[in-house]
């Protein structure tokens, strides 16, 4: 993990960045913040700083450039690195800073003026119309608006408005203590509570220079992998529901409930809230390792048996095969995260590439290589991950059983004063990044970057030849949370 500031101009930085991406590094994010112009004279002279995050080797590198005072615009990165498309729109929303040469600078996370609510038309032609789907969706869903431009069946263009449920999480972090910040990280993207909390805590622990005890690392993996299973089973239930397999949908709903009940039995919250704290975990699991192991065994048998049946139901497979394909070239170029990237042959799993907590000491099942990148392969990747999660969980339960009767504290003292660090964790949706800056024990800037934000923009591109009835399959196969997009 490195931070590098450049005194040269923005264009030079973008060229350096594009060269690194061309050489195989992954673009991981871009954001702006008001920071001291020079790290030496803290606070005396501030500047708007652009920070680009790049995943390389064993860490996340941050490349920065300070804009000249009073700058109202800068040369856009998007023409060079397409994955910056949404990131630069957020910067424009937050600071009014104009990226010159950006292809479409519409509001993304901030609720715009009424004119922004007019239905945009990108495709002209006889019989073309726009279906505004959302923000109040049919069914129990998070609020997002899809604008589907269609002549009736095909979907030549899709537009997304995510600003409806923007909650100002990033701004709310400012001024919080490191210990309070964890409560907000838990609620940034509720279905990935543990992953967000881990990424946040890793950043805090790097600043404080503290190392969580071994037992805490195990409990963290325990919660993170149970969260992954719950999310992937939830996706399976939604896909089964979309294809009209009522029994399959019901059975996966039962399995998911069972996982959430196991989590609540372990820590008191169905989403693992309160379990992870800076420096470690709040307590050891309330369920004995033996009882945990036997429940995991029953759960694995039930989930995998239904998964096998689902992947052998031809009416289901027909709906998913070749639906919503993402090409390997685009996945690599964008740096697609999590199961979406893996399904298109691009895997950069933080648990493997930049391991944390107990992952380095546990054996991971390797996933199968995939290329097709359609909804079916995305589901196959999820089942591989579920199998790998159960494999990890069994090891964790064994290790927990081997701990001493009184293993000592479950959290190391962690009282950071000041500094800056990046933390990461692999959520069920993909890699989550937290860039945290502390001053006098309080957060002066915290930038969360969810996998949902990075991946959702890819939905623009996967409708090649797919029609309206494929929409629910494609949306479910992405398995993202809007809360994590419109932070």
């Amino acid at each position, binding site marked *: 993990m490195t931070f590098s500031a450049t005194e040269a101009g923005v264009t030079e930085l973008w060229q350096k960045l594009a060269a690194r991406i061309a050489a195989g590094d992954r673009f991981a994010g871009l954001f702006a913040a008001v920071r001291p112009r020079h790290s030496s004279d803290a606070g005396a002279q501030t500047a708007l700083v652009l920070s680009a995050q790049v995943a390389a080797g064993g860490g996340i590198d941050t490349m920065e450039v300070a804009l000249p005072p009073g700058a109202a615009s800068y040369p856009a990165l998007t023409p060079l690195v397409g994955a910056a498309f949404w990131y630069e729109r957020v910067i424009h929303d937050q600071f009014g800073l104009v990226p010159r040469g950006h292809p479409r600078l519409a509001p993304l996370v901030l609720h715009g003026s009424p004119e922004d609510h007019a239905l945009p038309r990108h495709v002209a032609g006889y019989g073309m119309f726009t279906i505004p789907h959302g*923000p109040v969706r*049919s069914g129990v869903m998070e609020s997002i608006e899809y604008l589907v431009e269609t002549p009736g069946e095909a979907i030549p263009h899709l537009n997304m408005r995510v600003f409806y449920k923007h909650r100002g999480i990033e701004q709310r972090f400012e001024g919080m203590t490191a210990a309070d910040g964890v409560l907000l990280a838990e609620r940034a993207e509720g279905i990935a509570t543990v992953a967000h909390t881990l990424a946040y805590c890793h950043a805090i622990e790097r600043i404080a220079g503290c190392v969580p005890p071994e037992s805490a690392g195990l409990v963290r993996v325990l919660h993170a992998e149970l969260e992954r299973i719950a999310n992937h089973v939830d996706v399976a239930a939604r896909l089964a529901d979309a294809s009209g397999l009522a029994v399959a949908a019901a059975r996966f709903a039962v399995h998911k409930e069972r996982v*959430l009940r196991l989590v609540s039995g372990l820590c008191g919250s169905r989403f693992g809230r309160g379990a992870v704290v800076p420096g470690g975990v709040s307590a050891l699991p309330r369920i004995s390792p033996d009882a945990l192991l036997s429940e995991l065994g029953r759960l694995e048998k039930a989930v995998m048996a239904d998964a096998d049946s689902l992947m052998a139901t031809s009416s289901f497979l027909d709906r998913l095969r070749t639906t919503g394909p993402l090409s390997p070239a685009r996945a690599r170029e964008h740096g697609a995260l999590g199961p979406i990237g893996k399904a298109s042959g691009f895997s950069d799993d933080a648990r493997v590439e930049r391991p944390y907590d107990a992952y380095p000491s546990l054996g991971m099942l390797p996933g199968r290589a995939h290329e097709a990148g359609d909804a079916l392969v995305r589901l196959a990747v999820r089942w591989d991950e579920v199998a790998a999660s159960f494999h990890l969980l069994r090891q964790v339960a064994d290790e927990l059983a081997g701990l001493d009767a009184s293993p000592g504290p479950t959290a190391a003292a962690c009282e950071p004063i000041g500094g800056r660090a990046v933390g990461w964790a692999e959520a069920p949706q993909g890699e989550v990044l937290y860039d945290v800056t502390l001053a006098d024990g309080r957060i002066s800037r915290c930038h969360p970057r969810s996998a949902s934000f990075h991946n959702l923009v890819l939905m623009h591109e996967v409708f090649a030849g797919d029609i309206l009835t494929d929409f629910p399959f494609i949306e479910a196969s992405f398995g993202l949370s809007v809360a994590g997009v419109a932070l």
Partner: protein
Amino acid sequence: MSLWVLRGLRGGVVTTRWPKRPDGYADGWRGPATVHDPYPAGTAGLGELCPTGAISITGQPGAVRLDQGRCILCGRCVDSRPDVFAWSAGTTGPGAAALTRGGLVVPEVTETDAAVEAVRARLFARTVALRRSVHVRHVDAGSDGSEEWEVLALLGPVYDVHRLGVFFTASPRHADILLVTGAGAAGMAGPLRATYEAMPDPRVVIAAGTDAVSGGLLRESDVTTGGVSASVPVDVWVPGSPPSPFGILNALLIAVGRLGSNRKGTR
């Protein structure tokens, strides 16, 4: 297909019998924090324990008040002052949801029994025709996503709200109950209001979760309205971060008068 029929039969009945029979999982659930009665003297520093400002000191005897509508169940107060604070048990039963915002403050003070009874009578007069079959429209007004999972769980086999005559509907025109989650994101204020106005009378609004009740941690954010009551008139208030499926089900039944809410001890 026949494969799935057999699979479906294999698991047996997993559906809870609640509210007819007690359910161990519902009863064992942790509710929001509450205040011991009586608690020992010494209230210095209690207000600073809570990250959402739910704890206040009134200066009267029995001076500590805890607003469960702001409690995000982090447990800071219970961990550091177990002599004053405790977890309330369960998220079902008459005490788990309130018919007035003030009813979520413990120990109860702000309203008289008669006032709460009047609120209840007005609500029940509206909902008397709905009791055996109600249609619910859910709207996310800026949730963190976990609330949707808990609402969705109600439609699964374990909670199965259909057995109680509760159905979720896509159209607000068919809806009797508006179930709102989330802290009241400014962007959702208009769509939420439009959904409410599209519903026919009588209509009932449930604020599900601490975020919907008060905004929770996002209460003071300038891109949220700090709870959904700024956009729609709330009838039933449910704490929890997120509220458990049983807690939401409990509130749905309270809303149509099939379970009482005895906040303020009037029932």
